[in-house]
């Protein structure tokens, strides 16, 4: 593999900075919206972000209908309900306000209203025939980066799996990344989303589909998150730390949306689907084990990751030392962020691991994992994280 294989880089038009959320109305109008479905969730709405964005829409003469029926790990049923609201209200555009859940749900709604049928019909890669109505994303979590990615992860409730819908059509028209919207995030959520963003960056950098451009975003993301996360956790009200975190998350998003992810996400999606476990925390738990397992397949990549995270002598030390140091570093970060549970403590049982591994094997993210892994190896990783 060389660095100059064919690569595409897809990104939305985005605005980053303080007050970016206030531009929602203007952009929606420029995209031709006259009546928007604002997709958000109860927490975000309670924090006032939903109404703030809706106000900018109304200021532009755009009518709003609000859909707040989104849970963590958004469900197919919620997508279908949202698309009903979209149709019933006669909407012509979608504005998502919130974290990964409202944004993925908003993408799902867009897919269904443009293509008809059920959201689960569009599982897979490049399986969306028609583009969706204009979608403006206003992220408030600095973690999922759904606002810049081509991913939408929806929970298939009957099968209890998370399906990945990956398509360039999922890239929003505009992302408005406003660090100020993340100020209201509670500590635990800040930690979980921060670690999620870090996982994105690490997996994107180690991905077998990485490219010079994605590497740039990925490494910068790892470096930024490595310091910003703990600055934020030390001072949740620091605008500067929040902004650095938001930037890191966005960089990670731009990287992984194009370089794609790896085994951490495959395993994590499986957990989220079957057991509805929180995505960010699962990623944080699994990341060290997957990195340790993958290390041998891309040692130079992981050395860079270690270096970016401040592991001493990461470029010169022997591989096993760097691998262990990185493993330890990632574990430390997780614990420092406040998470120390194993899978068992999340309620997972031993007998579920084989099934979880089988489901993970199906996840598209596994195809870009630097090391090819089979079901047994995936199960071993669950065992390690148990």
């Amino acid at each position, binding site marked *: 593999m060389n660095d100059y294989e064919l690569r595409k880089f897809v990104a939305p*038009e985005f*605005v980053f900075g303080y007050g970016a959320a206030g*531009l929602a109305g*203007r*952009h929606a109008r*420029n*995209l*031709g919206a006259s009546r928007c479905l604002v997709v958000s969730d109860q927490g975000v709405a309670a924090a006032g972000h939903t109404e703030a964005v809706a106000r900018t829409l109304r200021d532009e003469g755009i009518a709003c209908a609000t859909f707040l029926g989104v849970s963590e790990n958004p469900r197919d049923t919620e997508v279908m309900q949202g698309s009903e609201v979209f149709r019933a209200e006669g909407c*012509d555009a979608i504005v998502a306000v919130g974290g990964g859940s409202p944004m993925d749900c908003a993408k799902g709604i867009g897919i269904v209203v443009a293509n008809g049928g059920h959201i689960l019909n569009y599982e897979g890669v490049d399986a969306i025939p028609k583009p969706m*109505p*204009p979608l403006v994303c206003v992220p408030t979590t600095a973690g999922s980066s759904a606002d810049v990615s081509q991913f939408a992860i929806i929970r298939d409730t009957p099968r209890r799996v998370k399906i990945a819908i990956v398509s360039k059509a999922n890239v929003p*028209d*505009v992302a408005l990344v406003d660090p100020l919207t993340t100020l209201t995030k509670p500590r635990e959520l800040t930690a979980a989303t921060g670690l999620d963003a870090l996982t994105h960056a690490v997996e994107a950098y180690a991905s077998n589909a990485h490219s010079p451009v994605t590497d740039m975003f990925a490494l910068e993301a790892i470096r930024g998150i490595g310091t910003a996360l703990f600055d934020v956790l030390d001072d949740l009200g620091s605008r500067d730390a929040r902004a650095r975190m938001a930037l890191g998350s966005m960089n990670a998003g731009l990287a992984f949306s194009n370089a794609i992810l790896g085994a951490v996400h495959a395993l994590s999606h499986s957990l989220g689907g079957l057991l509805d476990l929180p995505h960010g925390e699962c990623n944080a738990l699994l990341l060290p084990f997957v990195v340790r397992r993958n290390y041998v397949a891309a040692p130079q990549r992981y050395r860079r990751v270690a270096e970016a995270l401040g592991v001493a002598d990461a470029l010169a030390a022997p591989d096993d030392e760097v691998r262990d140091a990185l493993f330890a570093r990632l574990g430390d970060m997780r614990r420092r962020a406040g998470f120390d549970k194993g899978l068992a403590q999340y309620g997972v049982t031993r007998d579920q691991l084989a099934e979880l591994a089988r489901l993970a094997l199906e996840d598209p993210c596994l195809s870009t994992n630097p090391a090819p892994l089979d079901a047994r190896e995936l199960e071993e990783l669950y065992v390690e994280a148990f």
Partner: protein
Amino acid sequence: MSKRSDDLRAKLIGLGQASTRKSYYPELKERLQQLELFRALLESAGDGVLLLAAETLMVLDANGAACRFAGLPWEALTGRPLAAAFPELAGWKPHLSGNAEGFVPQDGPRTSAWHMADAAPPAGGEERRLIRQPSHGADLWLELALKRHDIGGISYVSCIARDVSERLRAEEELRESERKYRALFEAANDAIFLIRDGLVRDANRRACELFGRPLDQLTSMAPRDLSPPEQPRSGATHLAEDIRLAKALAGEPQFFEWTHLRADGTPFDCEISLSRFTLRGEPWLIAIIRDVTEQKKLREIMVQTEKMMSVGGVAAGMAHEINNPLSAIAQSAQNLQRRLTPGVPDNEAAALMSEVDLERVQHYFELRGLARLVSNIREACARAADIVRHMLDFARRSDAERAACDLAALLDRAVELAENDYDLKKRHDFRNIRIVRDYAPGTPMAECAPTEIEQVLFNLLKNASQAISQKVYPQGETPRITLRVGTQYGAPGLPGGIGGIRGVGGVGALCESEATGASPACTEYVRVQVEDNGPGMDERTRVRVFEPFYTTKPPGEGTGLGLSVSYFIISRNHGGHIMVESQPGMWCRFTVLLPAVQRPT
């Protein structure tokens, strides 16, 4: 930095009001709205609109009206051939130029995203077709208009289906109404003209008959062209016509008498009713022309009948009154003669008592011619009595025996009588008159009193021979009497009558037409005609010829009662008709009609 450069910088770095990456979405939305609007327009259209694939005529799309016409929901209609919608079109292909037969598809449809609307001229022509479409209620009549369109490199055919049932129905009703009025128009027994701008534009069949001209000749003629230059009552024809037409056009219906001309130039009298009506905003006149020639003749006959009846009554009354003094005179004359006759005891006794010699008295009478005078009185009385007897006949119904008679045989017997009649033989040279017989075979018998009819026929023959004797025949023409016997249906003076109305009688039967003469409403008559080629008679004579004592002969020759008696025998005693026609100088024809004996049907 100035405000302006701030704005410029904002725009440059993508933070201007309109600094959003361009999207086709707004434009598409607008187009979609236009399409929806267009769709709504199509849906609201009363005409059915279908979009078809050019090659297969497969229905690609259809609006609500099209689905309704086809009786299929949209889902069932689309994707099926046009014939599924309109069964009458099974196996049919429109001939749109450059259409399916000549159309060779390229390698797959050539689509051009930026097809310019004005770049390609519309291909193909248009085809129209009227079809009958089965429907739940009455069948529909649909007018289809198919047109070919090439859009984005693909050929389509649009099909507009218009429900023309209402229109066709209205047209049919109009045609029916037209037929109805045409039938009324043509069936009218009066001539009818439709006149516009002073010219006849239409005329019915009766008009053609009455004027003796075909329709194409009548139309475009003015009423004045069909009239003599002068009207008997109203002067110059063209002036009178102008006044009548103008008044009628002014909305004042006109009713007047008029004289028209047939094609052969013979005039006929008519009554005209002229009134205005409006057709497509233009003033028209309708002229109803009734030929009153027959009515006039009938009127004349009725007048004559009245006259005959009253004269007959007066004559009979007079005869009765004259009879008594006449018999007294005859009686007295006879007694006078008898009482002068010698050898009668009472005469002898009276002479003895008067001491007069009866022989000498008689001698005196002889010398003074008194006996001849008395004889003259008696002869005159006999003659007067004869006249009186005839006159009484007018009033007396015959009690002679009735029988079914062969009129041809009776006619021959009358000819025989005439041949042997002294007067006719000696004075009128009857034997030199050629008798021509024209007896139609199969003529039925007539119920009559043969002696009376024989007398009538004899009278007619006598009349004819007397007339012939008045004429000096030019070289090459010889005296001739033509005798005809035949059948006639219907009474004169009523529809179906033949040969004019010259007689009278209690005729009540109505005949629909000559052709349907078998109709029980028609009386069947045996017709006998006696026609001479004598001098004929003028109209003045003709109308009086049946009057008692009317005669053209010198005094002493005939009583003037023969035809009167004949008239009463035929019309009153037999319920028949007798009439006379003549062409002065040429001929005179008497016609006798007697009811035929009913033939078994």
